[in-house]
């Protein structure tokens, strides 16, 4: 395998190896190098809140937002969660500026994917996981906020 190994090759391989060892042990990401930290943190299900959106049409029917790029809904949910630590979302609460920005961004994403959608309101649901034992769990969705699209559009919220 290494019959015809040369000094040039050894040097290049050694350099890459050194960089990889450093990146791996330091758990660092330095694009294009990465330590690939995937599923590495123990997550506590009881702590995080999963915010998901339901779209309400003019008739009052609601359905889950399912964007073509699936990660959008998660990203929007994560941002809502991040901006809700200070200003907790409730049915009566007033949206903070950053929460408004997130929902306006969500509205733009929805409208760019479905230009003809009849959107009346965005409904923010807090999704919680209830675990009965180590085998079974239940997902419970609670409506925590509803905002009319018109209000988001005019920024008068």
């Amino acid at each position: 395998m290494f019959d015809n190994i040369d000094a040039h090759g050894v040097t290049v391989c050694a350099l890459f190896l050194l960089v990889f060892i450093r990146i791996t042990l330091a758990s660092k990401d330095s694009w294009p190098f990465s330590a690939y930290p995937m599923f590495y943190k123990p997550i506590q299900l009881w702590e995080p809140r999963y915010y998901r959106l339901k779209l309400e049409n003019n008739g009052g029917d609601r359905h889950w937002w399912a964007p073509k790029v699936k990660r959008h809904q998660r990203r929007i949910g994560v941002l809502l969660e991040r901006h809700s630590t200070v200003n907790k979302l409730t049915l009566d609460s007033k949206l903070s500026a950053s929460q408004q920005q997130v929902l306006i961004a969500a509205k733009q994403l929805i409208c760019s994917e479905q230009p003809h959608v009849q959107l009346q309101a965005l409904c923010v649901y807090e999704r919680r996981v209830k675990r009965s034992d180590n085998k079974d769990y239940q997902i419970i969705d609670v409506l925590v906020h509803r905002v009319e699209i018109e209000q988001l559009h005019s920024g008068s919220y």
Partner: protein
Amino acid sequence: MLIDSLMSLNTIGLFHVFFCSYVAILVLVSLPIYRKLIDPQYDFIYGKTAKVFNRIELPTPSMGAHSVCVVIFAASLMFSALGFFIKPMLLLALILYFIVFSSLIRHEEVGRKTHLYPLIIVVLLLTPDLNSGAEQENAYWPVWLIKLLWVQLYFSAAIQKIIGTGLRQWMSGASFQTYLIAHDAWYDIPMAKALAKKPMLCALMASAVILFQLTTWLVLLFPQLSLIYAFVGLLFHVSTGVVMRIHYLKYIVASYLILLLDGASFYSLLN
């Protein structure tokens, strides 16, 4: 004639042709998706563009300029694969990679999935002669080094799990089960839900994953294992696609070509 000229290449030469052709076709096919992801409306949601080595900020091309860069990136790889100005075309592709992907890797659709590409291109650039025939024995180190890039991905991922969660905790399956539940909460995935309700199976799968990731370095010492690890790795990515909707396969399969070609060349040498 094409097959004859391919057959005259050695492992690294064949890898160069297949890798460059695959990546060129992949980015061209993905161009409509890239055009959506490059939209400045995502800046607020996904943050700014990535910096090279976390330091060097690249100019953000407009949507039109980005598409042109994608096409030139693909063309340069294709020209290199076809044997026209092999090294200059690879160098051009390397530069364009950073311009094309700096605004894309912030999206999980792309994320870290293309990180190996520029590193592989660097190795190809440093390879003495990509056109040498099979009879003329080229140095083996480029093959070994590309396999090392592949190994680092999985081995490092395993080390991060051990540092972050602990080996015993990870192998118990509890952490994996929790991730499955989280994925179900985000995306409503029936397979994730079904698997999360089987803790023994979660423990088995989590143990199998860490065992695979921790032992990938064996392919560096024993080329005869390359085909086995390629099969297990591809199976792993198909599983994460089905169960967790993490679709690494279409990007990562390009790096698997080295395992397939090295394994195949090992067995043909044996015969």
